[in-house]
């Protein structure tokens, strides 16, 4: 029952972007070191950013569990970005190495399922300046906007109809 409520909560309230089209939802996991600093600065400077993304700060990118990515996609989020420190710069004993390897495998699985590994953006050390962050997010947002919505393929019950030749 919880899942039902969560699903409703996340799927509700579609925000409209320019020209009235629903804006794709992007979830950003940003580590509080390299990953999050750029995000924070972009926010302070009020840079021009698409409206429909949320940032979840995490201590380290290695704490982002792949299950959360699948769950995010299942809940109506269209793209997930994980921002971490560059490969030499992890504060926690190269945990970002493991994170990167693991998340690269998640992309492989997403490709297998046809969902597309490109819905998972990995920016390790490339988004730690505010303008870098803004560019990464803008590009990802534009890319995701062109991808077909996942909604028809999600879950079962209610509004979810897969092919039905009526």
């Amino acid at each position, binding site marked *: *029952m919880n899942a*039902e*409520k969560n699903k409703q909560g996340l799927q509700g309230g579609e925000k409209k972007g320019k020209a009235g089209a629903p804006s794709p939802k992007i979830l950003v996991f940003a580590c509080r070191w390299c990953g999050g600093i750029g995000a924070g600065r972009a926010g302070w400077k009020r840079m021009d950013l698409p409206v429909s993304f949320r940032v979840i700060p995490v201590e380290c990118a290695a704490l982002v569990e792949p299950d959360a990515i699948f769950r995010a996609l299942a809940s109506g989020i269209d793209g997930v970005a994980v921002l971490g420190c560059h490969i030499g710069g992890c504060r926690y004993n190269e945990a970002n190495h493991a994170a990167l390897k693991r998340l690269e495998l998640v992309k492989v699985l997403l490709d297998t399922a046809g969902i597309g590994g490109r819905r998972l953006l990995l920016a390790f050390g490339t988004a730690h300046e505010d303008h870098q962050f803004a560019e990464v997010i803008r590009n990802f947002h534009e890319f995701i906007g062109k991808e077909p919505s996942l909604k028809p393929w999600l879950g*079962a*019950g*209610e*509004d979810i*109809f*897969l092919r*039905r*030749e*009526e």
Partner: protein
Amino acid sequence: MNDSFVRTICPYCGTGCGLILRVRDGAAVECLPDRDHPVSRGHLCIKGWYAHEFIHHPERLTTPLVREGERFRPVSWKEAIALAAERLRGTAEKYGGNAVGGLSSAKCTNEENYLFQKLIRAAFGTNNVDHCARLCHAPTTVAMARSLGSGAMTNSIEHLARAGCIVMIGSNAAESHPIIMGEIYRAVDGGATLIVVDPRKTAAAENARIHLAIRPGTDIPLVCGMMRHIIDSGLHNGSFIGERMEGFEDLRAFLSDWTVERAARESGISEAALREAAETFARAREGAVVYCMGITQHACGTANVFALCDLAMLCGHVGREGSGIYPLRGQNNVQGACDMGALPNVYPGYQAVGDPAVRDKFRKAWGRDLSDRPGLTVTEMIGAAGEDIRALYIMAENPALSDPDVNHVLERLPALDFLVVQDIFLTETARLAHLVLPGACYAEKTGTFTNTERRFQLLRKAVDPPGDAEDDFSILCRLGGALGLDFPYRNPGEVMEEIAALAPAYGGIRHGRLEKAGIQWPCPNTEHPGTAFLHKDRFTRGKGLFVSPDHVPPRESPDGDYPFWLSTGRMFAHYHTGTMTRRSAFLNREQEEPYVEIHPEDARKLTLEDGDPIRITSRRGSIVTTARVTGRVARGSLFAPFHFTEARANRLTNPVLDPLSKIPEFKACAARVEKIRA
């Protein structure tokens, strides 16, 4: 410190999957699928995977119990058997044998069912013996017996994979017979068209090419419309009809009232969809009709089955591999309980109680005078409790949850002079008993179950029953002996020999022949390999008979006071009254709370959210349960699984019966919903 692997049969549904119990130190600790099994081939559903969990549950009955006031006192077997014999015999002496009745068990083995009906008939000279088939496939046994001559599934389960078109009507096999659903999907993978007819958008419906979401209780209009279109289009199988059928002209005349337009209007389906379904079925090289409770549990359930038989035979889809009529029997041994004559009108092998030659045969075999009057059914016996019925012997049945209008059941059962209940847990019914006898579960006995494809399969004992509980075969032998009957059997295998001698269709069944893959009846002698499908060159009755199905809409439909349709049924994690599954940790975790499905629009109008407590009320009673808001159920309809004792769906159901088979109309009545304010 010894692991052993015991091959046995799953105790849940009528598919009869092979199950391997891993036993360690006398306890069944794990279930494994049997890769070598002819039906299940290494597959299990969630219930089968966890069929070991309830076996060693602490609430298992371990000793006979006698009720004193509100409490139960343990007694010895000697005392218990003596009490049962005395009270049952006493009742018969005081009021006549017909004041005694027995509810046999579709969960117990064939041998146990045979002994049960023999005990009731021989000891008391009555035919008041019945079991829960009355609540599920009684219309199948009645209608198919009339139309084809045999009331059983015409084919084997594996033949479904060869069908080119499967019409699945009133069945949610994805949740109730999952392994059979797997065979249906194999057919789909091979190119078959799946057509699902169900008012709800079940999991099966979601995976079907065509889903006909008919209005509740409009199966006959739909099927008649399909048949009318098939005949009008010339798609019926003329040569099959000419050679093998009777009554076609009567059916054709009957169908003149059923235009496609009328059928579509009454069933709520578009004409185009109706025509497409009909044509696809008729044109298929092999067409299968699969059906279950959505067809049978109606006030016109028997007529519903006639309609399906007519449809299949109209297209010539009987008597081959793939084509056929597939009633999915519910309980692990409900087919067997029927085969063994735990029915008020027939002896083992469906030999009529009223037939003098038959009665004579059994009289000689059993050494007792027998009644020629058909007895009462389950619902009739309970309805007459305290009046015409004074004593009941209930073996492993739970009418306090499974019968319609349970409030009435709960009033009537205490009115009995004597109620003895034999079961593995203290069920809601057992709580009302004067005497409780602790029986054994499937893992603790040997014997046979017969699955829905008529396959006798051998159980193997894996563990001992707990405490002083005994297997039901032993209990019946003791009680039979105490009642003066001759029950000299040393083991269930000897019972099967007696059965084989008295029921020709099972003449070749012996335990020793069942080791590998079981045997499907008819099996007339010990050389015969069994029968994979029926009606190959001739129907059991000779020619198949078209029977015109008279439509009777649901006897209670929504109105101002009770504006919703209410239907009851099953969900995948639990089994029937939950006696076993709600004591299985994994299964109970999957679904712990009772719920009733309601459509999002209806929920919105009632300001209900998923998970809210609600009260459902019908003319029979009221329950408090939880709302499950889902688009699976149609607008204006509710669906209530009946597994939950704390919210018994059968407090609400309508006990009105189908006149021919006496099955209650579980699938349709009227109810209202109220939000419960905190």
